[in-house]
């Protein structure tokens, strides 16, 4: 079967030194936000992408939607290289792939009503007549739980709560009936009660619209509720991939284990156990392009890990890990 979304050796490097500093220091420094990522997402799959801040997960999400340019590699959507799309084909792609941003406060134009924002998506793609558009907007508002829809049509973003805004943002993405969605931490800026409501709403619409999505999050515990498959990302590299249940039950990569340890246990008697050799500072100070990215923080690191970069290998059926210490 052909994957809906596929990346081949995808790389995105951001240059650090620019302008005058670049002329003075000569060499350009790069941050590998996304480094050699190969992933496949099949139709109907709900995938989560888990990683800490700065791991490049948001960059990867934006790359998949062609919102930023790539450094090298290829991205395929329905078998077509999206970087080569033009004109009509590009517009079709824009209709089929949508993104939901982290911050619902800035994801909407403050000078546009909710109806205006949703209707604009339809106008851009020349869908429906005037009356049908209004009907479609109302239907979309209902599906994300903004009821009664008439109440929200003429509202401006500042008149809504954070949760309502995020619902509106999701409605705007869903109104085009996309085949693929990227959720870029849509819950992290909402408060705890709203978070649960939105999470439930996403779970409802995913069945209704038969969505395929990539859910970006830093919360490995959340991944269980929204995904069947997961990717663990660290400093631009995929460290582990597999079925969510299996990864959570039996994390293989040392980094995944660290993430699991960070999940708080709801029991005051339980002492928080941090992994023995973790110095958070190292992670941000130097990103070494040599060896395993996790080497400075890894408790099982060997000499090999320092020199050679481990490749993502299938260690069990449907289970990929990039670590020298895990043998299949």
């Amino acid at each position, binding site marked *: 079967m052909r994957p809906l979304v596929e990346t081949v050796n995808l790389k995105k490097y951001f240059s650090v030194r620019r302008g005058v500093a670049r002329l003075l220091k000569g060499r350009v420094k790069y941050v590998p936000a996304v480094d050699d990522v190969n992933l496949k997402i099949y139709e109907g799959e709900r995938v989560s992408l888990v990683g800490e801040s700065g791991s490049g997960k948001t960059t990867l999400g*934006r790359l998949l*939607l062609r*919102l930023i340019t790539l450094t090298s590699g290829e991205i395929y959507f329905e078998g077509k290289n999206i970087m080569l799309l033009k004109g009509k084909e*590009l*517009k079709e792609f*824009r*209709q089929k*792939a*949508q*993104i939901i*941003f*982290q*911050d619902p406060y*800035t*994801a*909407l*134009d*403050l*000078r*546009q*009503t909710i109806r205006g924002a949703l209707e*604009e*998506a339809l106008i*851009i*793609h020349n869908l429906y007549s005037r009356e049908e558009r209004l009907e479609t907007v109302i239907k979309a508002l209902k599906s994300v739980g903004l009821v009664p829809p008439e109440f929200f049509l003429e509202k*401006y*973003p*500042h*008149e809504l709560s954070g949760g309502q805004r995020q619902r509106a*943002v999701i409605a*705007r993405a869903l109104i*085009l009936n996309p085949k693929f969605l990227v959720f870029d931490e849509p819950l992290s800026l909402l408060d705890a009660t709203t978070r649960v409501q939105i999470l439930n709403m996403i779970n409802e619409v995913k069945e209704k619209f038969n969505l395929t999505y990539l859910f970006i999050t830093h919360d490995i515990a959340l991944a269980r509720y929204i995904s069947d498959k997961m990717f663990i990302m660290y400093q631009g590299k995929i460290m582990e991939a597999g079925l969510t249940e299996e990864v959570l039950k039996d994390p293989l990569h040392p980094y995944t284990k660290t993430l699991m340890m960070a999940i708080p246990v709801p029991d005051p008697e339980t002492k928080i156990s941090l992994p023995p050799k973790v110095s958070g500072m190292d992670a941000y100070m130097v990103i070494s392009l040599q060896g395993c990215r996790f080497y400075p923080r890894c408790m099982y690191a060997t000499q090999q890990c320092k020199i050679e970069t481990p490749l993502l290998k299938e260690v069990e059926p449907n289970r990929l890990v990039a670590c020298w210490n895990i043998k299949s």
Partner: protein
Amino acid sequence: MSSIIKRALKKFVKYFRIFSASKVGIAGLIIIIVFLILALGASIIAPYDPKATYVSRPFTPPGFKHLLGTDEAGRDVLSQIIYGSQVALIVGFSAAAVSTAIGTLIGLISGYYGGAIDTVLMRITDIFLIIPMLPLAILLALFFGPSLLNIIVLIGFLGWPGLARQIRAQVLSLKELPFVEALHALGASSRRIIFFHLLPNISGLIFASMIGGSVGAILAESGLAFLGLSDPRIISWGRIVARAIGSGALVRGAWWPLVFPGLCIALLACGFSFFSHGLMLLVSPFLRERR
């Protein structure tokens, strides 16, 4: 056909209701309307012929015969001010409109597209920024003869670089916001993003530039009139002041041909400024008070 008119009327009523929530905006609208009436009905409203000299003795103080006194040649100041409002509105509005339009367009395109387009447009802006107004005014007056159109063109085409830079800076930060990225993801064209989303979001700057520009144009016209670089046949507020100062009004204690036209300039500027408060409500829903 009538349904279109009806819909337009309904929209107008709706927008006027939003506008009228601003008391200051209404005050501004009234000031502008008063000046408009004065300008349009000048020939009916003005008590004297503004060009008729020695209607009374020079520098007659304000009184019943001449509400605002007379100037150095015995002309009625009130009548001149009424006729002068025509020039003030025409010069102020059209010069500000020209410079604001150019500045907005260049700033938007430069900020949005960036790269080579930005560099080229900003270097052109730099060139316009350093063109001195006075020598150019003299040149224009030399080649085309002193006229009001010259002044409008001059102020319109030299007044935009500052605005262009401000708008470019605003757009640079606006275009990084997620809502612009969301529009890209929705497949919106650049034209749609620039004119339907970025333009409304910089409307505050545009209004400010319109106000500043029109006041600046009224003042610049009087300055150029003082130097004899404007059409000598027209009556403008600046000219009343300039002529009065030139013939020693201050020495003789005749403050009225200086103060009243100056007040009019200030009042019209206030009118524009107040009016924009109401307009801001129309373009920025989050400023409206909740009912």
